[in-house]
């Protein structure tokens, strides 16, 4: 520590980085930030960093980076300007000044903000409010149609399905087996399956007789008691007694 007002105490815990230090140094110039001497500011900062090193205080890297940048800025400001160098040193100095102004403005704004009449410190809400309670009550809605349609759905979904076949004439497989087997013995010629059906069969009974006779023919063929022939799919189906019954 020194008596020099331009020198800051080297308690680094108190500083939030190089910009913070620069702002404090700039404030020590006791002029509007717009009018600060950037050269003086650079010298003050470099002295601050040197002193820190002199007492072997370990400085964070960003303080050293700022020191190097400021040393570069200083030389740029002092030496004759090289028009090739962009950005030029005056521009860099102006940018630094603008940054310091902005940090300073926000620091002051923050101080004014926390100094306002704050709830819980300066002004107080009611200590024991009764509280407002809104009980939300659902007003459930459903229409009679929804209700019966739902029941219809459940019923359709879960009732056991029963099919009633009303008075349909059928030829059973047993009857067909007996009839086809008996008729096969009458002749040795190929005959279409239709000739094996009862002559009186019409309508659904005929369909039933055809289906049963077909299954009967397959069964008889399996037993070696019939031979089947069909030229192509859906072509007439022929049956006859095997010429040489298989074993």
């Amino acid at each position, binding site marked *: 520590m020194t008596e020099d007002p331009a020198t800051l105490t080297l308690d680094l815990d108190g500083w939030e980085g190089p910009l913070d230090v620069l702002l404090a140094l700039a404030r020590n110039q006791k002029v509007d930030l717009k009018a600060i001497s950037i050269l003086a500011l650079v010298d003050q900062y470099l002295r601050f960093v040197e002193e820190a090193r002199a007492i072997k205080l370990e400085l964070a890297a960003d303080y050293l980076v700022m020191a190097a940048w400021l040393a570069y800025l200083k030389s740029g400001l002092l030496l004759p300007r090289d028009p090739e160098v962009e950005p030029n040193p005056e521009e860099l100095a102006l940018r630094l000044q603008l940054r310091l102004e902005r940090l300073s403005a926000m620091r002051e704004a923050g101080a004014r903000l926390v100094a306002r009449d704050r709830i819980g410190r300066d002004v107080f809400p009611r200590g024991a409010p009764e509280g407002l309670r809104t009980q939300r009550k*659902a007003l459930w809605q*459903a229409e009679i149609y929804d*209700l019966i349609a739902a*029941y219809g*759905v459940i019923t359709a979904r879960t009732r056991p399905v029963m099919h009633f076949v009303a008075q349909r004439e059928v030829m059973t497989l047993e009857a067909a087996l007996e009839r086809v087997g008996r008729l096969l013995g009458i002749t040795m010629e190929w005959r279409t399956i239709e000739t094996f059906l009862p002559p009186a069969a019409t309508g659904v009974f005929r369909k039933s007789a055809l289906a049963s006779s077909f299954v009967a023919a397959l069964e008889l063929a399996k037993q070696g008691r019939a031979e089947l022939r069909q030229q192509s799919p859906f072509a007439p189906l022929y049956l006859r007694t095997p010429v040489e019954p298989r074993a």
Partner: protein
Amino acid sequence: MSAPDPVVRAVEAVLFAATEPMTADAIRTHLQGVEVRAALATLQADYAGRGIELVKRGERWHFQTAPDMAHLLRRTHEEPRKLTRAGIETLAIIAYHEPTTRAEIEAIRGVGISKGTLDVLMEAGWIRPAGRREVPGRPLLYATTPEFLAHFGLASRRDLPGIDDLRAAGLLDPVDLAFERIDSDAEVEVSDEED
């Protein structure tokens, strides 16, 4: 309001911010010995007839909302809500089969029901517990209420369409079809609500 004197203002602020009713002595201590009784009387008169009043309970003073405003502190807000499919199906089963148990409802629906579903129907006032069935486990029975009949515009449960009526109305169509119809109904309702 009149602009009150400083002691009245101080007592007013202290009582307002207090978390508990305070005795006159406690207020005085708080205000570094200022006499507060006159101020309390003034405040009580100031607030007479307002939405807030200053009251003395035993030896303690506190602000409270005027008793005739108490109903404002608790408000019931009704929100129309649509029953879920589980809700409407459960209600339909109870209506057609009452009194019935939860297990029966589940057997008929073919899906389990959550307790919440029955709760919602009870909250709506459409079903009620109706004793227990005297079988092992004594399961609770559910039945519909007069409110149920009133809501659905039915004179009695016999007014519910029977299975034959449902079939005639096409409501026993293959399940897929019926589901589609319900789904599209639901969509229409949603878009109505958005309007």
